């Protein structure tokens, strides 16, 4: 069993099977590209991994431990903790329009820090009275201050990493699509997920803007990534493993070389040929 192990995912929407028994493994620090025609279940798979959908059946193991089981019920809190193991970058960014670039990145880390500190001090504050309680409150405030300073430092570093330091205080509406997607990537990275997923990260972009986003993703090599993409050249270049998904099943899997250069299945061949023609146009 590898670092990430997905076992027997099944999902139906209104009687249509969108995922039919999906199984795969991904070692730590490797990049998995998922390719295939639209409607093949790729997005649903990512949404299931990120707890936006609950599969009808299936288990996820992370680092050798059972992370989630479709048959089990989890409390909101448990679910959120599990959710944080994964990150997701959406096709259409979904930046928060009322927050600046840096605020977009900071929102979740700051709120989570607040919750965590509150939790930490809850019991002690209950027991303490009078001046002791006051001192604790002060200590709590200080702890939170330190955490948010740390968050801020980290966020600024991430902005630098995606090359947008000077856009720190811009609102999403003032950014190009490519810049917005780079902020969204920084936002997902801020929570240091174990596995970061990308759902067609360049599909909503004008062709001249895809390059800057792909460059940022390329620089993430060394992290565990799952990328659903239509950029065949990019998948071939960065991925360690490739899955070809169609009609809710994994039709073919292997290294980029195996899948792209020596596809075994007819469906894979047809798809690749189609993509090539599309690309030439």
């Amino acid at each position, binding site marked *: 069993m590898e670092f990430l192990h997905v076992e027997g995912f099944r999902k139906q929407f209104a009687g249509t099977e969108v995922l039919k028994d999906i199984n795969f493994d991904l070692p730590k620090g490797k990049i998995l590209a998922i390719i295939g025609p639209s409607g093949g279940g790729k997005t649903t798979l990512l949404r299931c991994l990120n707890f936006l959908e609950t599969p009808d059946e299936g288990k996820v193991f992370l680092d050798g431990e059972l992370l989630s089981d479709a048959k089990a019920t989890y409390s*909101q809190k448990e679910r*959120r903790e599990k*959710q944080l193991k994964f990150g*997701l970058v959406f096709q259409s960014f979904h930046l*928060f329009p009322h927050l600046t670039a840096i605020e977009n990145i900071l*929102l*979740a880390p700051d*709120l989570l820090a607040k919750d965590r500190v509150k939790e930490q001090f809850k019991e002690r504050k209950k027991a303490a009275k009078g001046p002791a309680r006051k001192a604790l409150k002060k200590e709590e405030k200080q702890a939170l201050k330190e955490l948010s300073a740390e968050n801020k430092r980290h966020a600024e570093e991430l902005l630098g990493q995606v090359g947008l330091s000077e856009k720190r205080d811009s609102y999403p509406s003032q950014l190009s699509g490519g810049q917005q997607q780079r902020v969204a990537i920084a936002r997902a990275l801020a929570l240091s997920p174990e596995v970061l997923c990308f759902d067609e990260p360049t599909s909503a972009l004008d062709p001249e803007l895809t390059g800057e986003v792909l460059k940022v993703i390329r620089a993430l090599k060394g992290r565990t990534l799952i990328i659903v993409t239509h950029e065949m050249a990019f998948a071939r270049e960065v991925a360690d493993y490739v899955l070809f998904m169609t009609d809710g099943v994994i039709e073919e899997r292997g290294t980029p070389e195996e899948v792209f250069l020596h596809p075994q299945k007819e469906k894979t061949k047809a798809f690749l040929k189609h993509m090539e023609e599309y690309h030439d146009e």
Partner: protein
Amino acid sequence: MTAFWNVTLALLEGFGSTCLIFAATLVFAIPLGLLVTFGSMSRFRPLKWLMRTIVWVVRGTPLMLQLIAIFYGPALLFGIDGLDRVPAVIVAFVINYACYFSEIYRAGIEGVPRGQAEAGQVLGLKKSQVFFHITLIQLIKRIVPPMSNEIITLVKDTSLARIISVTEIILVAQEYTRQGLIWPLFYTGVFYLLFVGVLTLLFRYTEKKLEYIKI
């Protein structure tokens, strides 16, 4: 001139009641409307249908009828003493406006793209955090124009309070009419216009403040 001054003072006193009804309605109906919205959008079906039925009844009957029902109803039907005049007006207005507001909120919430909440969810935020830190401000941005409309209507609806003899400004003016003095009734228009004028500026300011959010 003294007559004008006396009438102005008397109308101002009536306008006090108008403002009280207006302010109390807003203070209670704005949050209550949100509860109604959550209820009518609930996944728990009985609650959802109950709320939608209430909204239907309240929006489907004249406010005047609701005033009469709330003020006289308890005593006529059950022999309970019921509410005093001003509280009855406020209760009726709060229920009525909460229902209208709830529909505006609902449209607003449904207008915020689902991706916004999902983005918050994958970042590990609680439902309440998603609502207060992500949805709410975008919701406010969306509902300011329709809410402005509804709130301006409320200013003028307060004159219905006279049906159960709460001395708001129109009733004061009508008292003059009944004693033969006609112009005070038209003079009340000035009060309404000034009030709505101030509100309009306030709404414009709010819209301007929210302009930075592009949705």
